[in-house]
């Protein structure tokens, strides 16, 4: 699965995207955030504030209880700031 980071979250992870094979117990967005937090402590810190990190699965906004099953791409980003 591809995970993408936007805006200042890229600075927290050091990358714009990464390909990951997920452990079997990573089922939801919340699980994925926990998993990624172990790799990227500064991402974990940002994601701890619920409103600060938003998520999309295959380009659809989702909440943290959304299931990852079948997802090709998960994206994390801060609240949008518009044009």
């Amino acid at each position, binding site marked *: 699965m591809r995970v993408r980071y*936007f805006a200042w979250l890229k600075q927290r992870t050091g990358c714009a995207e990464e390909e990951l094979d997920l452990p079997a117990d990573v089922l939801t967005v919340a699980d994925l955030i926990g998993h990624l937090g172990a790799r990227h402590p500064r991402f974990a810190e940002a994601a701890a504030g619920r409103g600060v990190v938003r998520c999309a699965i295959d380009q659809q906004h989702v909440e943290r209880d959304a299931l990852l099953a079948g997802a090709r791409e998960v994206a994390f980003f801060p609240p949008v700031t*518009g*044009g």
Partner: protein
Amino acid sequence: MIRVQAGLFDVGAEIARFTAGRTDIGAVASFTGLVRDRHNGETVSAMTLEHYPGMTEAELERIESEARTRWPLDDCLVIHRYGRMLPGEPIVLVLTASAHRAAAFEACAFLMDWLKTKAPFWKLEETPEGERWVEARGSDDEAAARWES
């Protein structure tokens, strides 16, 4: 129609093209958002908008389609840029055409409120103190919330 592009656009030319040859449109409202050289009292020398290619276009399509459902529009155009832009440059253009002015105004304001709050763009400003990512503003969320009734 929506367009998401890095390049500049010409507001005047877009408006002229929008109504050219048509005699059935009574009202055209437009909104142009431009890069300002100041923000919260600080000098801004440039601004970069990051977007989410694919998702950004899909969301703008959805927003435009919703506006056409809510108001009787003869036509609608949204152009939004991404990438690095300088003060004075246009960022976004919304054009709405209708037989009646209230529909044109309201649809235009609705689209702008959505673009400012829901569209996947993230803003990086260049200031004398360096670069900084702009935080989302509460007042914009309130402006968008008024359409959710």
